[in-house]
């Protein structure tokens, strides 16, 4: 009995420490996917709704818990005789039915209002098609009057660039399984379902990067299926658009990058599109991922180095110092820094090299030949290409010029 007291104390302290640890874990300062830090009108609507709902739910929790605890302690068994048994207190029962109903009605009215506001599409100023597939997101900007006018479609992946203070409508779908698009600081989640087109409003208050994550389990690399929304002010967005639509610039002859162009055509262009790329006969090189990939799509790499992530936004294309420079930039300087793209000094060559060398080893995917029976030989994700180190050097040099 004597020994049990310190053990109980030890257990209590351990429980207290664990509880404090859990509590402290929720206080991260750098939490890019924190839904309690809204950075746009839509996320703010959710935020403005969830706080009062949490508050009401918290008050109810406290009252009910206090009532239960009071009953437990007040009427605990102390050897007293069993009290007189009564059946029913109509006034109390009716009151305790009406009160929760009123609370729920009080919660439902702003909830429905928020839902309707978040599904509104009549004030769209720009729309972007977002398509999920295992395990990356494709964003394409169709020709439209919105977004300041786009005459030729822009196709990118991993990072969706939008103008600040603009109601952007995401028209989302999926090419294979159900995914879910969620940028916590800008809006709630939206499932992207094959064969269906779902809409989601996106609006950012300030220039910056807003991280997101696929939130519907979608297979082996679900955890590695990330995405970001990059908000630029109007002038910077126009610069970004112009750059995305700029004509293809072939590498200078005799350079490693020029060799990389040929390696890219031979090894990568089956699936990856680089707009403007031509073969030796001057014919456009057109990717045919539908022949090799289960989702029938692979990221467009025309301007890979204008975005600073790759492989489903799983890895940074820039080294840590350069990454911090972009992520921690003030709203005023963010656009200029982001538009610099990936320079040779900032390139995260380690991860990119490992990825090109053996992608399935770096990110879990169904790309082994022995696993392709159910998909008729098509891979889910990038396969192992057996490139030599020289070929990898060439491809990296070539990609580094894809600004």
């Amino acid at each position: 009995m004597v020994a049990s007291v310190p053990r109980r104390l030890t257990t209590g302290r351990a429980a207290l420490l664990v509880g404090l640890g859990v509590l402290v874990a929720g206080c991260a300062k750098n939490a890019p996917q924190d839904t309690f830090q809204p950075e746009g009108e839509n996320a703010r609507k959710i935020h403005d709704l969830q706080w009062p709902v949490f508050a009401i739910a918290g008050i109810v929790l406290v009252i009910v818990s206090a009532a239960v605890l009071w009953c437990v302690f007040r009427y605990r068994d102390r050897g007293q005789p069993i009290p007189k048994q009564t059946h029913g207190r109509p006034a109390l029962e009716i009151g305790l039915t009406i009160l929760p109903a009123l609370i729920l009605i009080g919660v439902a009215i702003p909830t429905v209002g928020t839902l309707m506001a978040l599904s509104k599409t009549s004030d769209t100023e720009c729309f972007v098609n977002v398509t999920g597939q295992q395990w990356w997101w494709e964003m394409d900007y169709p020709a439209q009057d919105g977004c300041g006018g786009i005459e030729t479609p822009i196709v990118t992946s991993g990072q969706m660039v939008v103008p600040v203070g603009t109601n952007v409508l995401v028209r989302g779908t999926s090419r294979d399984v159900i995914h879910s698009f969620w940028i916590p600081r800008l809006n709630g989640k939206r499932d992207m379902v094959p064969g269906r087109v779902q809409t989601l409003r996106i609006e950012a208050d300030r220039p910056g990067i807003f991280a997101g994550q696929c939130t519907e389990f979608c297979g082996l690399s679900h955890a590695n299926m990330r995405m970001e929304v990059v908000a630029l002010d109007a002038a910077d967005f126009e610069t970004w658009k112009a750059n995305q639509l700029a004509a293809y610039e072939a590498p200078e002859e005799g350079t490693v990058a020029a060799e990389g162009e040929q390696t890219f055509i031979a090894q990568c262009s089956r699936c990856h599109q680089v707009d403007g790329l031509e073969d030796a006969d001057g014919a456009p090189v057109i990717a045919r991922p539908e022949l090799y990939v289960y989702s029938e799509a692979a990221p467009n790499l025309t301007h890979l180095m204008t975005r600073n992530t790759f492989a489903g936004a799983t890895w940074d294309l820039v080294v840590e110092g350069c990454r911090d420079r972009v992520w921690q930039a003030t709203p005023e300087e963010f656009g200029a820094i982001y538009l610099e793209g990936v320079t040779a000094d900032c390139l995260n060559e380690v991860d990119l090299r490992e990825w090109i060398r053996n992608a399935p080893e770096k990110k879990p995917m169904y790309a082994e030949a022995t696993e392709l029976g159910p998909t008729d030989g098509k891979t889910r994700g990038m396969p192992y290409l057996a490139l030599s180190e020289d070929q990898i050097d060439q491809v990296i040099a070539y990609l580094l010029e894809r600004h």
Partner: protein
Amino acid sequence: MLPTGSKLLIGAAVAATVAAIVYGLTQEGSLGTVGLIFAAAALAFLAGVVVYIREADVSAMDTAALSESAAAAAPPGDSIWPAVSAVGGVLLVVGLVTYSPIFIFGLVALLAATVDWMVQAYSERASADARFNAAVRERIAHPLEFPILAAVGVAVLVYSFSRIMLFLSKTTGPAVFGVLAALLLVVGFIIAFMPSIRSGVVAGIAVIAGLGLVAGGAAAALDGEREMHPHETTSALSAEGQCSSTDETEADEHASQNVAAKANIAAEITLGKDGTLTAHNLGLVGDQESVSVVRANSTNVRFRNESDEDRRLVLDLGTRAETDETGETIPDREVPNQLCTQLVEDGGSQLLTFSIPTPSRYADAPYRFVVPGVDGAEVPVNVS
């Protein structure tokens, strides 16, 4: 002198030998000859055994054996399981070199024979009373035999029934089965109103009907199913490059005019009364000049016909190489590469589902929606 019983076997062996020679000389193929030679050999072997043991007539030489030999012990009861085992074994072997269903039949026969033979052998050792032993066998075997036999019987009847239905033509089938149903009803009434009818008669009628059904099913199965004409769909029009037709085709029969209205869509294309074609992309405000489509993704577009005539929506993807019936490309021959809805009546709507792998910028010709028979009705399709 040859024992009496052996004469039959010797005669059968000789007959099988002669049959093997005749069959081998007159018929093509060696399977029959080989079978008959094996039969002759087996019969000759059995005849030899019977002659050697003198038909087990031990009493002729040893009178003590009448009470002491194994043959004097009570013989086991009649059993079909040795024969079933033999048939099962043969089917098993034949099935291995011919068809897998025969192998499965053989396996089932062997399993059934093994189980039931064991039960029978066990029950025959229960006591010296044959009736008691038979009761023991029934108590063990019937809970297994009855459900299996019932299931097999029902399966055979249903399968026979289905073969007959698939054999008869679409018009004959209802007539035949209408008459059979009426006959069944009449027989049922007769039996119901004649309580004195003997159960043997009823059982006989049922057995004859069942055998007739099985025989009919077997005959129908051997003759094969009737030729069934698959209902043509708009994919046939697409394959033949006939989407531009304004005429009603078989693919337009039984067209659903409203199911599509419930589906999720990327865009809606409307043909107005004035012959204009307008597009509305989901989520965008008002009408647009074109439809925006994601590359290589299954996309649903709804066509709403508000004109006064039956019209179909055609997705024109340029041209493609013509293929023959086997799917092989015919050199230097091209047909329109199109997908289309069925003819949609005034006020109706239809869904068109498609996937375009190549972006518009790399297409040989612009992608567009058109309505055959309506000049100028066109909406561009932009594939990113």
